[in-house]
């Protein structure tokens, strides 16, 4: 399998690098979420007499995808924000044909000598938490500040008018399609979100869609080197990303320090300074409720993929169980408090 994949990759990349032969070595699958199969590999070739070895990442569609995410969107987002100077891997090639590697894929630079903070450990960043937190929320602010039209992402999915409703409808469809049991709390949340719409956004931005602890790489000095997993990028209210990043699921057990990094107030202040936007309390409360509903929808879909046998990666069982229970409980707390 790996040998065959290596050979096909080598054939594919040779013309991309404008050389006759590319040798693929060290191909190995690495964790990278359930919505893409992720592999790291080395591509070695000689160009103009100079031997070159590049560390690359292959992100290939799985046989079934958790959420129907668009690899074109992910690739274009990497392209746009790499050009803008944000820490993202350099995108190398996008292939939509199934003829090359059986399923669509893209290839990007591997950011080496870095690690990811596991969401399952209480303090993944240790002494680096302050530095990482500052960068994390400043980067998110820079994403919010970018003009989607100017960076070539003005046509991403999403609504410029009533973006809140577009998002609620989208995730409601996912829940209805994938629920295996009556999702009482999710449907109550949907009704509340529809009855209590947020104020209009200050601006329409590119929303990363899954900006959180565990979706960035950092080095041993505490530098964020890559913001990853742009597959759910879309246009919308930038508060959507901030609320998702601050969701208690990603807080490593302490919601006062979102993403296991800096204090919540400081995170918001850093985001405001970098984005030039302000956080309206009422609007943000709505987007926080939405974040938990969106999470629940994703976990319900994960459970469906797993139970139907379309994608039996155990990470889907984990998300469909642990994460679903987490967000059900969080929404029950928040919604029941509104009735008190």
């Amino acid at each position, binding site marked *: 399998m790996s040998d065959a994949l290596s050979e096909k990759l080598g054939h594919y990349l040779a013309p991309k690098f404008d050389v006759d032969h590319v040798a693929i070595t060290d191909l190995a699958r690495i964790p990278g979420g359930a919505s893409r199969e992720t592999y790291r590999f080395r591509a070695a070739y000689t160009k103009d007499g100079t031997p070159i070895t590049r560390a690359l990442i292959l992100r290939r569609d799985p046989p079934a995808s958790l959420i129907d995410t668009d690899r074109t969107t992910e690739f274009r987002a990497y392209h746009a924000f790499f050009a803008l100077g944000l820490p993202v891997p350099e995108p190398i090639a996008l292939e939509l044909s199934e003829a090359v590697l059986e399923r669509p894929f893209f290839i990007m630079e591997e950011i080496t000598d870095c690690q990811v903070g596991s969401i399952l450990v209480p303090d993944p960043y240790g002494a680096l938490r302050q530095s990482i937190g500052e960068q994390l929320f400043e980067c998110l602010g820079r994403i919010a500040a970018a003009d989607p039209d100017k960076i070539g992402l003005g046509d991403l999915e999403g609504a410029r008018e009533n973006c809140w409703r577009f998002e609620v409808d989208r995730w409601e469809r996912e829940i209805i399609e994938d629920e295996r049991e009556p999702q009482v709390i999710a449907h109550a949340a949907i009704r509340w979100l529809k009855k209590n719409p947020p104020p209009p956004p200050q601006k329409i931005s590119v929303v990363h869609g899954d900006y959180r602890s565990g979706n960035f790489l950092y080095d041993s000095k505490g530098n964020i080197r890559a913001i990853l997993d742009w597959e759910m990028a879309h246009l919308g209210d930038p508060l959507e990303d901030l609320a998702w990043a601050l969701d208690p699921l990603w807080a490593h057990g302490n919601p006062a320090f979102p993403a296991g990094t800096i204090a919540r107030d400081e995170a918001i202040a850093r985001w405001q300074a970098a984005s030039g936007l302000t956080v309206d309390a009422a609007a943000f409360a709505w987007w926080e409720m939405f974040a938990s509903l969106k999470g629940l929808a994703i976990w319900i879909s994960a459970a469906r993929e797993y139970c139907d046998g379309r994608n039996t990666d*155990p990470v889907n*069982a*984990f998300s469909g169980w*642990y994460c679903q229970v987490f967000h*059900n409980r969080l929404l029950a707390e928040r919604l029941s408090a509104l009735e*008190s």
Partner: protein
Amino acid sequence: MKPDIDTILNLSAAEIMSTLAPVLPTGYAQGTASIISMLMMFSAQEHERGADIRHTENQNMRVLFAKLAADVSDAGLRTKIEIAAKTKDETFGISALNAANYELKRLLIALQIYFESENNESSQNARREIWKILKAGADARVLSIPASA
């Protein structure tokens, strides 16, 4: 004496993490072994409490339906919840308890929507009662991640 199910699951999970995972290739294989191990520990938690959670929640919904029926003016909905209030969990297999749970929850959604459309004190009390059950069920299902994970 034979080992209990939760003992088997917990010790097997520990064996995977301490003995098997370290000899697997780093990256996806080790990460997947770790997740499988955690799922086994969750299963151990659920084995002990799963039937109790479902049966308790089913009973709580039936009691609530009986209590709220008089406040429901929609005759069709009232009849349904009155009938549901009189049902019982005949067996304690998880699949049977789940089937009953799902039927009762479908009615709970209808009841919740009904009381959300009314804006008076008794409706507000009914909504609070519904949330009490939902919150208790959500709390009971919380999974703890072992410190060794």
